[in-house]
């Protein structure tokens, strides 16, 4: 048995195809991004080594910092919305008729392509015929805002469909975690006289703390690297008012053909995601994980 299952040739045959793919398609590009970020390069011509010039320029680039600020703002909004999803999940995981159908309905937006969602929300936000402003004028609002053209609100206008897209995903995860709590624990707490609030606060939430931590990491990192919807809906505009890190990178690399500078942004994004993951894990680290 052991001999058959230790056959080096078989192991190589099974592991190498997939391993080579992620090395060539994921790990080598990551290193190359770091390398290109030290170059001045238009993507076609010669590369010239400029050391840290791209990063020095980045530090002074107010548009870059604005996009970083926007990405962080999205991260804050996403994490805050997790609280809402927790409340919905706690209710949904109680004795609710139709809970299964409800969580399926919540999940539907997450299954659609970002382009379809973006195109749909472009119509919803349409100044005169969109669903939102038609509804507002039905309510008697005379001068509804132009959601995507007004630089002071455009950022929040693109956040809403992103939250809409992912709500069902987090509710699904919390729901599954809450349903995983052994009913004996809940019953024991009820016998001890715990009311529903205490049950939620002191028993259920601590028991799914591990899952909550994971979702915080997912929400923060997912927000920092977010791209699709914003790129399709506004392209970062008007005038950079909805620019985020990834869309700024895309614009610099594939629109202005400044591949070196784009790589510096892309590499900064990677570092940011790694640091954020590490920091959240550190901050939410507890000595004892709840066991049950």
């Amino acid at each position, binding site marked *: 048995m052991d001999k058959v299952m230790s056959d080096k040739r078989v192991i190589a045959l099974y592991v190498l195809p997939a391993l080579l793919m992620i090395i060539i398609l*994921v790990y080598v590009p990551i290193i190359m991004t770091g390398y290109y970020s030290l170059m001045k390069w238009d993507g076609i011509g010669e590369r010239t080594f400029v050391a840290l010039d791209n990063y020095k320029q980045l530090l002074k680039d107010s548009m870059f910092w604005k996009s970083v600020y926007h990405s962080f703002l999205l991260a804050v909004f996403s994490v805050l919305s997790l609280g809402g999803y927790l409340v919905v999940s706690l209710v*949904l995981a109680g004795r609710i008729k139709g809970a299964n159908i409800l969580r399926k309905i919540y*999940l539907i937006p997450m299954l659609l392509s*970002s382009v379809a969602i973006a195109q*749909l929300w472009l119509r919803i936000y349409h100044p005169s015929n969109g*669903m939102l402003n038609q509804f507002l004028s039905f309510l008697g609002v005379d001068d509804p805002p132009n959601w995507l053209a007004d630089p002071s609100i455009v950022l929040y206008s693109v956040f809403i469909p992103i939250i809409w897209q992912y709500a069902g995903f987090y509710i699904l995860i919390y729901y599954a975690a809450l349903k995983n709590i052994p009913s004996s624990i809940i019953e024991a707490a009820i016998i001890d006289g715990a009311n529903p609030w205490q049950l939620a606060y002191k028993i259920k939430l601590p028991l799914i703390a591990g899952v909550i931590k994971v979702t915080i990491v997912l929400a923060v990192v997912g927000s920092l690297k977010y791209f699709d919807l914003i790129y399709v809906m506004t392209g970062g505009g008007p005038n950079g008012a909805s620019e985020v890190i990834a869309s700024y990178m895309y614009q610099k690399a594939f629109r202005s053909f400044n591949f070196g500078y784009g790589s510096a942004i892309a590499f900064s994004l990677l570092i940011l995601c790694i640091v954020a993951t590490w920091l959240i894990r550190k901050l939410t680290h507890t000595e004892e994980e709840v066991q049950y």
Partner: protein
Amino acid sequence: MEKSTYIYMKKIGMFLFYMMLFLVAGLQILPLVWLLFFSLKNNQEVFNTPLFSLPSPPRWENYVKVWVEGDIGLYFFNSLWITTVSVIFTVLLASFVTFAITRMNWKLKHVVLGLFMVGLMIPIHSTLIPLFNFFMKVKLIDHPMSIVLTNIGFNLPITIMILLGFYNALPRELEESAVMDGCSVHRMFFQVILPMTSPVIVTTTIINMIYNWNEFVFVNTFISSDEYKTLTVGIQNFIGQYTTDWGAIGATLMISVLPILIIFFFLSNKIMEGITAGAIKG
């Protein structure tokens, strides 16, 4: 508190809970209902009838028009075959790796597993510029192969993660008796392990189908010819030509999301299982 007041309070509480849950459901589903309705209306009706008025008569000609006039059929076909090929290879290669990691004995397996798991966290945008350059050099830019390769590479980690839980729970006795009977590793893998893992293969297949069908950044960056575009990027261009025809835009969007919605309707439990397993380890 008197018992009757307590029951009364509880009823009000439950009512408010249901109100909240239905409100969230409404927010999630109404935009799509609105989309379905305006995809069956003409501009006159979109602009002049109430928001959620039923299209009467439903203008199915919007769907016929965008399918016949545009390249939607071509984009649809591209999405279909690229998704199919990517999914088959992703699930097969991931099954090989997961089998070797959970069942076979070798020193570096934890390092290799670590490489796949860290791959989950890497933002794809940080790989985009070198990948563009790489595909340019190997003449795969504007070639569907670049999309198939990146689809496979970037979905291997999550597929392996979903497979791991299932493989770890498989009993080992079956393999032992297979080896006793003189079965080779390959035969064991294809005739014993793969059939036994069919439930999780279905899960990973559906999850991969959804991700590949919806893939946007790679197609948008690597593909420039219309003939290779997939539905996600194709509808983006297509809608550009129809900026003022709401019915045509609605019909195009409906065609692009319908396959996923149909799959979800029949296999929602599998999809939910896959999403949960892909997000949280174990």
